[in-house]
């Protein structure tokens, strides 16, 4: 049995999803000779440490009832540096201004010789090459499948399945909230403001939707993709961004009459990074509805490959994180 110890830094929707996924898959993984053992959990109010392995079921229960897992108040640094473990799962909220606290957490993990698996876009959109170098210098893995496309395995597809191919360009819908809004506006001929309100009531859009509707979230994901796939040193400020707030139901109707839909499309290729609403032919494989995400990758050998799936959600994002954890377990 190979025992791998983890810390969960950040215990919101994603962190809890990871705990649930590990619990749910415990027996199957044991059958494969893998024992995932969580030794530290941190949320915004405190932490729990148990070098023999935290009881995830009671930690989830406590979080649900008290709003925190806190049993002590060790900091992220204390857990990352002082508690012996192999993989740091960094799932604190995205901060696009300075990447913190994720950026410092990731740096601390690399400096302590620990692998990092993350869903946190902020540090990667701002300092991708710096983080990648730090991981390489310390001889550890840096995996970030969950940062782009939620459950959709874009990086695995490109780096593993399409290994040997040269990627010519990528187009995609990488934000579920705006896709939901545009889909509903087109279907129901409703104005933007009304559909936004509906999305907020359903929990699909945040109370402050700026990040999604102005295309900032899409731009961050596009930067991470471009850096990872093309080896660029782009930051989110290099993206030409147009949001969806000015789009009218009449525009969508005119487009529809002419066999187009309007989608917020991310485009990378030819050295340009663009996020903008685009006319897309109705029968195009990029036309997916609801909150779905989709990416279409053009390569020199395989041609065009398109994948779509759920771009957000606690357990869906945990799927990508678990896959990254298992990649490290199998390759280290």
């Amino acid at each position, binding site marked *: 049995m190979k025992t791998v110890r983890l810390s969960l830094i950040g215990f919101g929707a994603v962190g809890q999803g990871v705990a649930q996924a590990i619990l749910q898959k415990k027996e199957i993984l044991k059958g494969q000779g893998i024992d995932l053992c969580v030794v530290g959990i941190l949320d915004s109010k405190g932490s729990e440490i148990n070098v023999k392995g935290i009881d995830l079921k009671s930690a989830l229960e406590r979080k649900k009832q008290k709003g925190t897992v806190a049993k002590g108040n060790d900091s992220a640094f204390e857990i990352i540096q002082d508690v012996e473990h192999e993989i740091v799962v960094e799932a604190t909220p995205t901060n696009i201004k300075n990447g913190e606290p994720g950026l410092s957490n990731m740096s601390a993990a690399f400096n302590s010789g620990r692998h990092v698996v993350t869903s946190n876009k902020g540090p990667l959109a701002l300092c991708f090459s710096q983080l990648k170098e730090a991981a390489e210098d310390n001889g550890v893995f840096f995996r970030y499948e969950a940062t782009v496309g939620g459950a959709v395995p874009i990086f695995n597809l490109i780096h593993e399945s399409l290994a040997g191919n040269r990627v010519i360009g990528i187009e995609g819908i990488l934000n579920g909230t705006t896709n939901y809004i545009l889909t509903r506006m087109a279907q129901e001929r409703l104005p933007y403001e009304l559909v936004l309100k509906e999305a907020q009531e359903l929990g699909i859009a945040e109370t402050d939707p700026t990040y999604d509707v102005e295309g900032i979230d899409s731009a961050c994901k596009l930067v991470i993709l471009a850096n990872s796939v093309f080896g660029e040193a782009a930051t989110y400020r290099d993206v030409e961004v147009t949001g969806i707030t000015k789009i009218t139901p009449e525009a969508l109707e005119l487009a529809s009459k*002419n066999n187009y839909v309007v989608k917020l499309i991310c485009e990378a290729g030819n050295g340009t990074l663009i996020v903008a609403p685009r006319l897309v032919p109705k029968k195009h494989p990029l036309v997916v509805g609801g909150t779905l995400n989709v990416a279409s990758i053009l390569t020199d050998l395989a041609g065009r490959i398109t994948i779509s799936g759920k771009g957000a959600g606690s357990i869906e994002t945990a799927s990508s994180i678990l896959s990254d954890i298992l990649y490290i377990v199998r390759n280290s």
Partner: protein
Amino acid sequence: MIVSMTLELKDIPGQLVLALAPISELHGNIMSVIHQHEEKTPRGTIPVQVTFEIDQGVLDELIEKLEKSGVGVARVGEERLRSSISVVLIGHIIHSDIGDTIDRIDSTGFAEVVDLSLSMPAIEKTSSAYLVINAEGENELKNALEILREVAIKKDLLMIEPIRLNSEAA
């Protein structure tokens, strides 16, 4: 020049070759042939649409050759604008002078706005427009789009362009 012709063929074997051979002989470059065998004309002939690039000086000679070999030439037209793109504009389209916006494209001489649909929900609200722009070629189309982008920024209009697929560049 780019020429589009409607030819009428007799419904007997070998007629299509008979119609296309003279175009090649006069160094024309055939771009498309639409041959609808099941759609006969009232005269019992079969219509064929041919689009090709050819030197203007030999056009009369070509028509003469075709008719001499028994191929009917029903229509001859010059296809000047063969590249096309659709865009959507959103904003105060009318109040920012839609006539001027169209003029900016039409006055280039190489591109024209050939279709326009407008939707105006209420006076104080923004309107939306769907435009089709035709141009002489792909480069001219790019130039026309660039002009429209500048106009859109100046008039505070949101311009939605078709998705740019990287496959086109590959």
